[in-house]
């Protein structure tokens, strides 16, 4: 069972966290102006890379705060966590 470092609480057991899918997919400014296809991309389409992935996580059984993380989907390792108001880290 992995430890996940909540930006507010520090390392905690992974069972305290829940997954929130791809990060940096903002709610569109004006949904009404989007084509059906553009809206469908917001609602349904997400990346599914092997390797580094920017994800949303929620410390749901802890401080209940959302945060972002860069995680490797092949090794499951968290490479870093950052707050929602931090910019997306530049990864090599």
């Amino acid at each position, binding site marked *: *069972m*992995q*430890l996940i470092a909540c930006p507010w609480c520090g*390392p905690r057991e992974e069972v305290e966290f829940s997954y*929130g899918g791809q990060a940096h997919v*903002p*709610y569109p400014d*004006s*949904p*009404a102006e*989007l084509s*059906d296809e553009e*809206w*469908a991309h*917001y*609602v*349904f389409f997400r990346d599914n890379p092997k390797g580094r992935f920017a994800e*949303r996580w*929620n410390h*749901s059984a802890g401080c*209940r*705060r*959302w945060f972002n993380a860069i995680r490797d989907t092949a090794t*499951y390792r968290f490479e870093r966590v950052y707050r*929602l*108001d931090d910019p997306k880290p530049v990864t090599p």
Partner: protein
Amino acid sequence: MTSPFRTPEGGRIDRSATVEFTFDGQVLRGHPGDTLASALLANGRHQVATSVKFGRPRGIAAAWAEDPGGLVQIEEPFPEPMLLATTVELYDGLAASGLPGQGRLADVPDSARYDAVHSHVDVLVVGAGPAGLAAALTASRSGARVALVDEQSEAGGALLGTDDELDGAPAVDWVAAAVAELAATPDVLHLQRTTAFGLYDDGFVLALERRTDHLGAAAPKHVSRQRVWRIRARSVVVATGAHERPVVFADNDRPGTMLAGAARTFLHRYGVLPGREAVVFTTNDSAYDAALDLFRAGVRVQAVVDARPEGSPQRRAECEGAGIRVLSGAVVTGTQGVERVTHALVAPFLDGEVGAGSAIACDLLLVSGGWNPAVHLFSQARGRLRYDATLGAFLPGEELDGVAVAGSAAGVPDLAGCLADGQRVARAALGVPAVPSAADDRLPTAPEPVVPTAPLVLWRVPDPSGAEGSTSFVDLQRDATVADIARAVGAGLRSIEHVKRYTTIGTAHDQGKTSGVLTSGIVAELLGVPVQDTGTTTFRPPYTPVAFAALAGRDRGRLFDPERVTALHEWHVAAGAVFEDVGQWKRPRHYPRPGEDMEAAVLRECAAARTGVGILDGSTLGKIDVQGPDAAVLLDRLYTNLMSSLKVGSVRYGVMCGVDGMVIDDGTVLRLAEDRFLVLTTTGGAAKVLDWMEEWIQTEWPDLRVHCTSVTEQWCTFPVVGPRSRDVVGAVFPGVDVSNEAFPFMTWRDTTLDGVPVRLARISFSGELAYEVYVNPWYAVAVWQRLLDAGRPHGITPYGTETMHVLRAEKGYPIIGQDTDGTVTPHDLGMAWAVSKKKPDFVGKRSFARPENHNPLRKHLVGLLPVDRQTVLPEGSQIVEYRTDGRLPAPPVPMLGHVTSSYRSAELARPFALALVKGGRERIGETVHVPVDGTLVPVEVTGSVLVDPEGARRDG
């Protein structure tokens, strides 16, 4: 009475006490400190069981968990299947029997308790042999918090099975001193009889502690039988030793055939001679120690058969000095005997060719094919293994963060090396200097190791019998042979994982502890590829079997999942309520009177609510307090309808959708103040809706000045429902004008009752005149009782969730998650009226414009009335077209939808249902069919509101 094969002295058993036990019905004796296996051997008994497929006699072939032969079932004191005689500690009254490869589950409940413990340490050392003890001592002396776990009954590891010396005294004396030092150190947790069976991410280790198994009937009842330690360690030192590996030859499974090191353990640790006349077959130097030790203990060692062309010149000289014959360049090709080996067939062996052999009489055949480091935990942590062609073994092949392997688990061959390695690895784990800096941190001096003669890697001896290895057993537990591997390879299998599954090798109780590497070697040989390329099968937890009861711990029965009860629970129990689980809540489903079944009780309760007055404990309803200057903005964005226009004092029904436009919850909203709302959710949706609000606030709208908190448990809620509800509520709360004019539908009012704040709300989930009463749980029972007292003249009837469901279904009110399934929009539910057209946006709005949302064949929520006025349609039933012939069309039968809710209605005097039906609203008035138990039941499609469609009753 002395057991015939017990040595006159020595061993770590308590000879002053006798233990009586029963095996296969025979009463036998042993001593405290014995295992079932050592006690059986002391009584001359090698055969324990018969094999799973061929019924061949099988005996004790090793001294611990790697034994593939001695499977037993404990019958007394508590039945437990599939244990190894070698790992069952002997106790008085133990009754066991041999198992033919399969056990029997107990048919009585297990009365023992199981538990779990958490521990956090700097260093966890697994294994209390020389390397593990050295590591634990080094770590504890540095001030680290240390845990040391070991699967045996006492510390010492391999030292318990030898007569090795340290500092010129028996090595076990040093073990005792080390254990005493650790015990005196406060920050050390030392657990014996504790098997680390799984190594997971970030230093997380699961270990099973067997606390009372060795005590039998004397086990104290207040102590849990076993418990799982959940240890989180900054560093894990794997010092789990090595398993000796046999060599495969024909009929290598006869009882009396045993690993050489195991015989040493039985001798030194248990004071048992595993035989009188031994043949020792080896490919390496280590078995010579067994030969010499047994010889000194009085066993006639008929021959040491060494497969190496030159054997070991040095060890040969030792043996010949003692008068033991050594046959170099020779192998054991087979055995004779039935229930016990009587002869070893020995033949010259040169360049892989077996010469003409002869039989040597023996009752004990010791075998050593080398040693496999116990890399299981390292491999579980996804550590890569490397094949060492000299040792014929897989060793840790990389450094892992936080996991280090020490001692013979890392391939270190000798005692001095293991001690030094344990210390080195502990220092590295702690990040302290590699050179001993303190005088008091010294390790004992071991005898200078003798440089061994290189071993021969030999997986199998060619079968000279012509049987092609069909009795050359690789996995004794699975009765799988060299011939089976050859068949697998012949069938084209190349991957070791495929060979494993084809032959079942390594899938039994021992998980291939002796057979795994042998299989890799034999497969490599048959394919003509290096063993490194074949690799091993994946090591997975658990290292040794763990009972489900231990994993479950206390999380069983009522403690499996938390039970939530309302403040009225005791009242419900006393009233004879039948409960149902709603999420974690225990809710009264109905209150049967004597002689009533559920159907009768529900019809009575429904009639009371529709014609008089009923009362429900609705306290489980989700309640969220939403506060802040932007509270109305938040709700406008999350609900499909407008909430900001709601007046303080009023209530509005609302629907929430996901971004895909599908309904996720519904409920009512009370505006408490300009900046404060009480959001009511479904019982099951409470946590989900709070999470949903938090997610949007935190991730999308952090600028909103709004906060949400659950107040579900801060308010008990009692809907008082029915035409007489006004009389009841008016009587209990005389300060409130309950008239329709002063207190209209969808409003709320605060009042007090004897100084206790109470909130009343005109909300109806039944279509009837109704008042919801909200009160602090501390006063819930009192308020509930006053309502009952006031309602008595009107026949007030407590009702449960089943009646609540019938009443709401009669009104066509959907239950989200029952009448919907994540593909249903508000429009599908006939709730276009609850979707704001004014708001520029809200979550889900854009999806309503998708073409699919305007498909006329979308499923709509409609009512169904079985034409026969009798059938209660099973929920989940499919709906098909009406057929005049009453028969299903040929498959695939076109499905129109399914039944989502179905009840018997007192009001309608017939059963009815809600259903999702394709284009359902256009089909109102049509007849369709529902297949029930093989017949087609005609049903009429109706609107979803079957009772009081004009809504005349809500105001009383």
